[in-house]
């Protein structure tokens, strides 16, 4: 893994040498997130969000394991056990609010992470596998979050479970049988709650496993960077530790401050008040809305209102799943060799339109299914698909991109040509600078 100039792990003590010879785990960690992983020296703060997502997952696992010690996956007592956590368990209110808002923050940093990848072309060769594994993580996250939202067994839990599993009911022929199989009943019930709890506990560990593959795949070519230019030599990189551990640490402090602000001052801002009403199979809430992080997809689902060959409901389901499935083909839909949006002036305009488009979709997804929101959702859905299926393929062939810098260090050092010369090319007297080493 990594570049030939990556620092080798040197055990600092006899004990660590003994460990290293028998189980080279310290070596693995050193090479993955330590001084042994050379990273482009020009990463900006958008490169913090992968680490933040990892921390968010860790927060969810720790708080979740603790909540599971007090939660009761029983349709009769689940709601009361959540209130028990809020009222009786020592600091239970904090743990539950940290878990509920931690999920929202996990999605916030993951969405920024995804859009970072879209803007800087992180999905392009040779990092297609990183992108594909990331999408798998994203799908697992959505499944986990959905099932977690069902567990408190409030009104939104119950009716959300009914609506989302109802999506599978739209599939022709097998749909209804599939929905019944997923629920273990004809409506969300004890069987649904128990299996969702089981899977909600399992999937985060599956996510952790795929994250390891995600990072492994990333470390084959190494991290991308804001210029999109390949690393050409040691002068283009710095060791991950301490340079990016410090930068990530700073971002982590900001992240924790924001999360704490929401937990302590607006813990229910991102939730829905109706979920504090116990589930009632006989009374549907006035409007059923999923958690905010599903709103863009919910808007796409509801944008289809006319039967055309297939029922409108089925079109909505196909489009909603399609909106994510097409991202799996993104590396091939956009074959432009220039990775970074910084050097693609036209792409950049469409990228920002896409951001606005997704925000508009999200806004409409949180509103009732009535005009004008349905009409806006329809237009925004058309643009979403057009962006990926029409605009990007055409753009990658016709766009006139800006000249790329010769190397990362040239782009950083602006005109200091000798220092920035690509590694190995003869320059007027100056030797290539070695990768800067941290002070020990």
């Amino acid at each position, binding site marked *: 893994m990594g570049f030939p100039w990556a620092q080798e792990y040197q055990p600092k003590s006899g004990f660590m040498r003994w460990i290293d010879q028998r189980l080279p785990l310290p070596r693995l960690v050193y090479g993955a997130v330590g001084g042994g992983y050379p990273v482009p020296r020009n990463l900006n703060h958008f490169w913090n969000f992968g680490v933040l997502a990892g921390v968010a997952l860790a927060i969810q696992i*720790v*708080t979740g394991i*603790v909540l599971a*010690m*007090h939660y009761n996956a029983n349709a009769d007592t689940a709601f009361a056990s959540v209130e*028990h956590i809020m*009222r*009786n*368990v*020592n*600091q*239970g209110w*904090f*743990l539950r609010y940290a878990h509920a808002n931690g999920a929202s923050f996990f999605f916030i940093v993951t969405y920024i992470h995804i859009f970072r990848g879209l803007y800087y072309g992180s999905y392009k060769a040779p990092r297609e596998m990183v992108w594909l594994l990331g999408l798998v993580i994203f799908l697992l996250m959505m499944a986990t979050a959905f099932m977690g939202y069902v567990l408190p067994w409030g009104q939104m839990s119950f009716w959300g479970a009914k609506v989302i599993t109802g999506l599978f009911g739209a599939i022709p022929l097998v749909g209804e049988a599939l929905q019944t199989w997923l629920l273990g009943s004809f409506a969300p019930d004890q069987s649904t709650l128990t299996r969702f709890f089981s899977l909600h506990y399992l999937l985060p560990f599956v996510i952790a496993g795929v994250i390891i593959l995600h990072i492994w795949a990333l470390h084959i070519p190494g991290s991308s960077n804001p210029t999109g230019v390949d690393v050409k030599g040691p002068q283009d990189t710095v060791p991950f530790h301490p*340079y990016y551990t410090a930068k990530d*640490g700073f971002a982590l*402090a900001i992240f*924790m401050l924001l999360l704490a602000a929401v937990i302590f001052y607006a813990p229910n801002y991102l939730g829905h008040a109706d979920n504090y009403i116990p589930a009632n199979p006989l009374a549907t809430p006035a409007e059923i809305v999923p958690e905010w992080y599903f709103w863009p997809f919910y808007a796409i689902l509801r944008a289809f209102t006319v039967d055309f060959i297939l029922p409108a409901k089925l079109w909505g389901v196909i489009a909603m799943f399609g909106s994510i499935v097409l991202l799996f083909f993104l590396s091939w839909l956009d074959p432009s060799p220039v990775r970074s949006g910084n050097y693609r002036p036209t792409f950049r305009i469409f990228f920002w339109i896409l951001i606005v488009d997704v925000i508009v979709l999200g806004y409409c997804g949180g509103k009732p299914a009535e005009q004008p929101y349905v009409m806006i959702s329809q237009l925004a859905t058309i643009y979403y698909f057009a962006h990926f299926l029409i605009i990007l393929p055409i753009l990658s062939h016709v766009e006139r991109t800006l000249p790329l810098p010769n190397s990362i260090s040239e782009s950083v050092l602006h005109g200091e040509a000798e220092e920035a010369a690509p590694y190995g090319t003869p320059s007027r007297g100056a030797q290539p600078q070695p990768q*800067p*080493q*941290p*002070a*020990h």
Partner: protein
Amino acid sequence: MATVEQTEGTAATAPHGQGADGVRRRDFLNIGAVTAAGVGAAALVYPLVNQMNPTADVLALASIDVDVSAIQPGQAIKTIWRKQPIFIRHLTPAEIRDASNVDVSDLRDPETLADRTAEGKPQWLITLGVCTHLGCVPLGTAEGENRGEYHGYFCPCHGSHYDTAGRIRRGPAPLNLEVPEYVFLNATTVRIG
């Protein structure tokens, strides 16, 4: 990039940010940042650990009031306190006499009956119904149960014999049956816990 190439070895030249004592400004920042992070982490560990302590609803049941007026001398009842059995025995004068006549220095866990009962109420023996060996519930509260060789309680699990003051006399148990904190609210009501 000048600052990152400083090493301890260049202390003699005292580069930027390094005082005469060899302490760099960055050392201060490192210690400050790691300390702040450590305090934050410790603060977060507290709720994660403390959530495993008894919850408020468990603590709300931590004391119980028991009406003992119906217990005749020689009888005992079993009740539940903090999810554990509690034995309340109304001792007969003969049992009090037996318990008081024992030479305390011969006991494995030396305590007098007076140590184990409330002042002025030596007839009320209130103990946890949990054998101090491995936690079984001893026999002897109900009519006709085996009360052991010392006529108190007998633990059937490993054969521990307790006397009429609930003190261990024979068998593997190391200690006397535990006496919980209690007060008599009036002549017939006792608050345990």
